């Protein structure tokens, strides 16, 4: 008799993601390049994911970056990854904040091998956020400030607002 977990194919997603990172590490010579590829792929996903998000959530246009932060943490992360990071560490100018993830679903059962100490395993997430926000006219910089895979207590994503984007600029794949 088999014991199956209740329906959820997040394992498929996390295992697939793991296989992707493994493959990229094989294909590219160094962690820096893998990080770049993950970011690029994330961007390509983000520019499409935003449509799915807008269609499924009833979120309207955000008035400011604070609202954007809340929507990302409480709606988007919840919808797609089933977690709600906390929003903290606002810069005085209100243009930069941190998302603190107590646990990161992407890294279940993952351990970084010794020769990949500079790999940003979850870097796809940064690209996704960047791509998605670009489609709603926001240029942002997204990076991991802390990573449990690299020994930190929490995973911290730092997001900085760069500028508003003109609506008529075409966006494409990177």
């Amino acid at each position, binding site marked *: *008799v*088999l014991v199956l977990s209740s329906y959820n194919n997040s394992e498929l997603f996390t295992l*697939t993601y793991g296989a992707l990172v493994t493959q990229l590490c094989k294909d590219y010579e160094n962690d820096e390049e893998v990080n770049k590829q993950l970011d690029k792929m994330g961007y390509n996903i983000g520019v499409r*994911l935003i449509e799915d998000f807008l269609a499924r959530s009833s979120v309207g246009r955000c008035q400011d970056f604070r609202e954007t932060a809340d929507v990302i943490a409480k709606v988007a992360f919840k919808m*797609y*990854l089933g977690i709600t990071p906390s929003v903290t560490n606002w810069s005085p100018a209100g243009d930069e904040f941190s998302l603190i993830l107590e646990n990161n679903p992407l890294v279940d059962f993952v351990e970084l091998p010794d020769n990949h100490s500079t790999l940003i395993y979850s870097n796809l997430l940064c690209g996704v956020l960047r791509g998605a926000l670009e489609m709603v006219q926001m240029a942002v910089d997204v990076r991991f400030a802390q990573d449990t895979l690299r020994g930190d207590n929490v995973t911290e994503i730092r997001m900085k607002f760069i500028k508003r984007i003109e609506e008529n600029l075409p966006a494409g794949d990177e």
Partner: protein
Amino acid sequence: MADGVLFEFLHMEMVSHVFKDQQSTNGEMNNKDRAVCTSVLEGMGFRVGQGLIERFTRDSPSFKDELDIMKFICKDFWTQVFRRQVDNLRTNHQGTYVLQDNKFVLLTQLSSGKQYLDDAPKYLAYSCGVIRGALSSLGLDSVVTAEVSLMPSCNFQVT
């Protein structure tokens, strides 16, 4: 718990990446390049399929026979992985099975136009690997291929 749609987006991007990558090193894509790409995707799927079974089946499974395993693949496994059950399972009782999924989840995002029929194999390689990996973990060595005649319906052949 990751939303199912994330897998679909990730898969689409993975296929795109693998093919773009191969194309950029060689300039153009010929059949050999295509074969390399599908092989890379299939290989990734294989390891994931194995991993999924390891997670699914914590108690040692007791399947009566090969057909029992195939039914598990068609129902429980397919539901977990491809979000529905296989519509039709056929066998020649000599080790070949054909699994028909009339609305294969990874094909529904693609248009049903004729030009996508030619591209469909790109989007099936990974899944063939997942199935082959799962079967391998369940004790069955196999070759898994897929064919599409009418989008988004798809037949997976297991021998």
